[in-house]
């Protein structure tokens, strides 16, 4: 099949950037979307034109490195699928596809379709862990975890940190990402001791990193390649309110409320 691509080209962070049109010819339906771009890049290289920069690594939908907008939808038209796992059989002859990077204040563009998502790491640094140093753990079966709790924790922990939720959100909020980690740890007995401190720290950090506020629109859930449910945001909000009340002194000091 033959497609027309309009791709965002931006040399570096200070370049204003623009859309550039490319023709993708003889695209094989069994290719992944990124393989289609690989082929385009090889052609551009041979013509002496700068290939399109995009991030990817595992190409199995698990590392969260890939991601861009296809016709305004994060990771493209297939639900529950990253662009590296999106296959060209989803498209048809003559399609016009517009590829743009994640757009959010917290994710500045580095080049073309590549953005800086280090703000996500900073949210984890603000409490997205259990403080247990190597060597101090009890036997794995010492604390029983009911299967339903373990399953719910796993559902939330499946987040790959790709940033699609932020890109899809009109407010560019990081609520689904932050809520997923908070929910994962809050469902487990091991996560209880730091539960409320964690939610305060992470939510405050997300604000500091210029993510917007969640207004429950739900676009994030719709594009999440791992189908992380909106419930994680509700859970986060419940914990946040509880924590803010119980620790109001600390909160006032830190300015998280």
């Amino acid at each position, binding site marked *: 099949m033959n497609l027309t691509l309009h791709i965002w080209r931006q040399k570096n962070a200070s370049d204003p950037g623009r859309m550039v049109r490319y023709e993708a010819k003889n695209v094989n339906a069994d290719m992944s979307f990124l393989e289609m771009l690989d082929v385009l890049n*090889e052609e551009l*290289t041979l013509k002496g034109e700068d290939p399109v920069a995009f991030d990817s690594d595992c*190409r199995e939908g698990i590392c*969260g490195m890939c991601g861009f907008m296809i016709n305004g939808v994060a990771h493209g038209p297939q639900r529950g699928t990253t662009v590296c796992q999106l296959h060209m059989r989803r498209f048809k002859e003559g399609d016009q596809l517009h590829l743009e990077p994640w757009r959010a204040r917290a994710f500045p563009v580095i080049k073309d379709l590549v953005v800086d998502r280090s703000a996500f*790491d900073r949210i984890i640094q603000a409490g997205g*862990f259990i403080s*247990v140093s190597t060597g101090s753990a009890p036997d794995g079966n010492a604390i029983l975890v009911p299967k339903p709790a373990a399953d719910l924790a796993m559902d939330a922990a499946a987040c790959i940190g790709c940033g699609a939720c932020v890109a899809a959100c009109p407010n560019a909020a990081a609520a689904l990402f932050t809520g997923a980690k908070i929910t994962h740890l809050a469902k487990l007995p*091991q996560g209880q001791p730091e539960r409320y401190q964690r939610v305060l720290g992470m939510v405050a950090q997300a604000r500091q990193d210029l993510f917007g506020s969640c207004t429950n629109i739900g676009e994030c859930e719709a594009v999440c390649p791992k189908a992380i449910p909106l419930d994680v945001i509700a859970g986060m909000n419940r914990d946040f309110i509880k924590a803010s009340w119980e620790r109001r002194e600390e909160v006032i000091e830190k300015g998280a409320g």
Partner: protein
Amino acid sequence: MQLDSRIPSGPIEKAWDKARFEMKLVNPANKRKYSVIVVGSGLAGASASASLAELGYNVKCFCFQDSPRRAHSIAAQGGINAAKNYQNDGDSIYRLFYDTVKGGDFRAREANVYRLAQISVNIIDQCVAQGVPFAREYGGTLANRSFGGAQVSRTFYARGQTGQQLLLGAYQALERQVASGKVKMLARTEMLGLAVIDGRARGIVTRDLITGKVESHVADAVVLASGGYGNVYYLSTNAKGSNCTAIWRAHKRGAAFANPCFTQIHPTCIPVSGEYQSKLTLMSESLRNDGRIWVPKKKGDKRTPEQIPDAERDYYLERRYPSFGNLVPRDVASRNAKAVCDEGRGVGETGLGVYLDFSDAIQRLGADGIRERYGNLFEMYERITGEDPYRVPMRIFPAIHYTMGGLWVDYHLMSTIPGLFVIGEANFSDHGANRLGASALMQGLADGYFILPYTLGNYLAGAKLEKVDTAHAEFRSVENEVNAMTRRLLSIRGKRTVSSFHRELGKTLWEDCGMSRNRASLEGAIRKIRVLREEFWGNADVLGGGEELNQALEHAGRVADFLELGELLAIDALQRDESCGGHFREEHQTPDGEALRDDERFCYAAAWEYAGAGGQPVLNKEPLKFEYVPPTQRSYK
């Protein structure tokens, strides 16, 4: 070159305790005076960085992805082994040790493997405490499954995303230390050179992948945790960015490279569909617990699978290996798949595939039972192939998956360069000639959480290190080398893309030095790789500049290193004139096609020394002794 493996004397059960007791300790107040560089943030690198920082060392950790959480370990699906014996099914540390030595076809160091089995139990405890959501039974205890040929259920798992969850646990521990200021994390930063001062590893030279800035970093010790080199084959189950650059550049500075030809081929991957293919996707081995592997009995049978009645199917693994059946080790399963395809009985459009059929299991457990176990894998298969494995059997074919070879390390995980430690898949230590399923995650975390923190401390406490900084001439000289290579790559301006060289290298190795090898094919591979390398430096096309994000340049540097490592891999395979584990030399097989080891001549680890560009690498041998598990011909009949 002197190879001292530093294996503790005395009974193996006590070796690690004894070694730990004899190790020198760094006084708690002094730890903060030491700095350590860790290259890599996968299971090995992240667990090491976090644990070292918890002890008080100052750590700088590097990865080439945009976040440490994306290291290739994230992709591991199946699980992690531990000798917990929670299932009361006869497992023990000794049995895990025994299975791993035997599975490695008697080419691993016994003492290392024993220690690995011992530590396996602590790893699970640590990960559970971090909040890794392992699968649970209804009573709340940890669930296990049997995996990859094991006859006990010792594999712990988190759905089909075990690597992801273990890595996120280690990543979170790492980020906690970043927050505490003990770890400085440098993402999108690639190590391109190693600095060796007075015979000791004292730092690295890196390139900032966004700005192109080349920079030196000094430390008291350097740890490489940069993963495996499977991508030398171009198509593999590894992530696109996985590469050998860190270990290869260290090799060129003096670190011996051990057993490069020990590469693992995984039997259950989605077959190649076309030239454009950028990587191969693994279908977890756990599928072999419930799926049955078969091909038609007749050659060239073009019927669809449901048209072929049971009597006309050859469940060849069940037929040839009645006691292990579909669960034979990876190398055996892979070679058998190749054999039936070579006979013309392969399936799918290319004839390079075999069926992995779940219809019996679906009848037994129901579609929901199967969904519970493998749901995400089935979805992944359908996304990639467009076929629904609940209705038609999967098609699978072997692919390069893991590299047992790597930099040579002693019992302390130190390479032949003092102060340079190597952990995780990047070293050669524990899996011999073949790795068992679910034991790479175990090894990476054993190295990082529980071994390196001791052995590195012992090194620092005993080494009298001069104070050096990045103004040292050694750093200038390594920086100059790195800059010169960048300039050279950018100035070729030839007519072939870097990817096309990488593909050709991979194809050569896969055909001549893949699932089976022989003298002629290996000699041919060496010749072809030399020619290809020459062409690369004269005809590769790398656009753009060095002072910007330039993915083509990054790839070109990695391919340049693969073109050198690929030759060593073939040289090693040629030298090892026996079959063992994943290394199958056609000249050496039993009448029914099983690998034939030669313990008289080859019971050693081959540690290669770099001899300069164009020089013949020098072979050093570390003899292997088997005092606990007497070498036998592996049999899975």
